[in-house]
């Protein structure tokens, strides 16, 4: 697995390196360390190598690029195929209030999975996988498994039901309690069960949760109540330009509002 890590200056640099150090040595075959801002930040790359404590068999490449962190990451990511890009949150707290400084701008432009580190570095023990109940869940589960397996972390599959009947006699009953929903035959419940079964096959401890309410609020509430270390989500599934105008970007919203590290999974090339 080829991993790109932004090791240059940034508000969450230390946390990003501490988080990456937990698993990169076990999953990567090559690591590309990147910094923006030119050669004056070269020593930050050496510092990152020391902090990551990578095994000697992993190929390490150091890249110094002029420009902002975002420009540096995009430039290096476009040169070769990477499976995972890791960086700390690049916005400062006050910048998040500006509507045009969305956290997902970089994530959206990258063609790979992203681990956006935010909040204090903590051992990765519990991963919350937010599932829309569709086939994209499996791609997210594969990336969650990549992190969970070497770390012995557990994965909780979460699905949020925000639907309500439009008319008083819905064509199919809306199951309003968690156990009944998970045991049901809705496409979402079947997907959750299949994803859970696949994760168990990887020897990963799995739990399933269903919450009822607004998608964003319920995901963040579960993240807080369950004290999870990482939130794993899929990418925004806009199929075309019209979708980009019409659909709410829930992944982007989560990146904006989530106080913890977020793993944004993409379908792997061999999927």
């Amino acid at each position: 697995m080829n991993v790109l890590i932004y090791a240059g200056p940034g508000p969450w640099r230390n946390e990003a390196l501490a988080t990456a150090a937990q698993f990169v040595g076990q999953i990567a075959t090559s690591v590309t360390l990147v910094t923006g801002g030119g050669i004056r930040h070269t020593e930050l790359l050496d510092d990152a190598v020391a902090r990551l404590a990578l095994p000697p068999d992993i190929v390490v490449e150091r890249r110094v690029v002029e420009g902002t962190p975002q420009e540096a990451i995009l430039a290096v990511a476009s040169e070769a195929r990477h499976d995972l890009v890791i960086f700390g949150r690049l916005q400062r707290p006050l910048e998040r209030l500006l509507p045009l400084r969305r956290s997902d701008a970089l994530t959206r432009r990258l063609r790979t999975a992203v681990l956006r580190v935010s909040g204090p570095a903590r051992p990765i023990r519990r991963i919350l996988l937010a599932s829309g109940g569709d086939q994209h869940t499996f791609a997210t589960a594969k990336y969650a498994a990549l992190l969970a397996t070497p770390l012995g972390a557990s994965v909780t599959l979460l699905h949020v039901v925000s639907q309500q009947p439009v008319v008083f006699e819905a064509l199919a009953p809306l199951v309003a309690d968690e156990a009944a929903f998970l045991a049901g035959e809705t496409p979402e419940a079947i997907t959750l069960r299949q994803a859970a079964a696949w994760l168990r096959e990887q020897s990963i401890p799995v739990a399933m949760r269903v919450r009822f309410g607004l998608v964003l609020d319920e995901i963040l509430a579960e993240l807080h109540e369950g004290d999870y270390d990482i939130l794993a989500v899929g990418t925004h599934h806009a199929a075309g330009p019209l979708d980009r105008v019409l659909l709410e970007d829930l992944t982007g919203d989560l990146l904006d509002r989530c106080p913890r590290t977020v793993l944004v999974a993409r379908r792997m090339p061999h999927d």
Partner: protein
Amino acid sequence: MNDDDIVKVEAVPEAASDVRGTLWIPGWLLRIASAVAGVLIFVLALDLLKEGARDYGRAMVAFFSVTSPVSALGFGWLLAYMFLSGSPVAAIAVAFFAAGTLDALQTFTMITGSRLGASLIVLGVGFLYYLRGHRRAASVAIGVQALITTAAIYLPAMALGMWALTSGLVQTVHAEAEAPLQSVFDWLYEPVLAAIDALGVPGWAQFGAGIVALLIAFALLDRALPQVDPESNAFGRIGRVVYRPMVMFALGMAVTSVTMSVSVSLSILVPLSVRGLVRRENTLPYIMGANITTFIDTLVAALIVGGAAAFTIVLVEMVSVAILSLIVLLFFYHAFERSILRLQDAIVRNRKTLIVFLSVMFVVPIVLLAF
């Protein structure tokens, strides 16, 4: 033309061996005919209401003690319960204004009341299902959502509108289309109204006939609605994905500018939804948008029977609701959404809270009448 565009009007074989020809009328033609008939009856209804309101309206307003904007709010609210719709009540308010029965502020608040009452109807029908054994609280959730969303926007909008009307801010607004619209309809309806006058039909009968005609007109206009094809529709995933609030807001406005009824607009979501379910994130801004363009028929009614002054009153209502809605959408949407949906959950939590809420909704307009 495909099969969906054809409405089967008559196919009654008298015997199995004697199958007669079947008369097919294209669906689009039937819809156009319904629309034209609906508009013509709508205008006639407004004229009848206006004539009837001159005598009967005063008696009605006196009977219900409508003496202030607050009591007019309660009056419109209660009437909407009686008519199971807000649009006829708003049209009646405009007719009352045109007949000099209500003043501008009373007309304004009566129209607001009609919308609040209309929102409860969605919930009321759901509650009947609920009491008949369909115990899922979720079955009435959208009705509760429609009502509290409407109240949350309309009540502050009412304050804004009242300020605009009393401060003189809106005196510069005039309806340019008044004269041509009236002249078109005058030649058509004057002979009918003259004949009714010649027959000596009392005011209350004209008023009653106006209400019946109004309800027929709305029923015909409902039949004129185009069919929704979920397969070739950008909103065909309304039950699965979350659309941007502004997009759903615009959709609610667009759909209701055709249906003119929030409850009809909500039912139009059914073919777009998965298993009759739609995401809450999508319905809230949709209702907000629908709550603005639901005034279009009242705006037309005001233009026809009340002239520029009545038009201005309805326009102020519409603009006030639009301003409040846009402020919420642009600046406080997530807090608003969370508050509305939490309140909705609290109300539909169990039968007791739902009954208490419904009782309050019935008592409040009655109490308002006392002011």
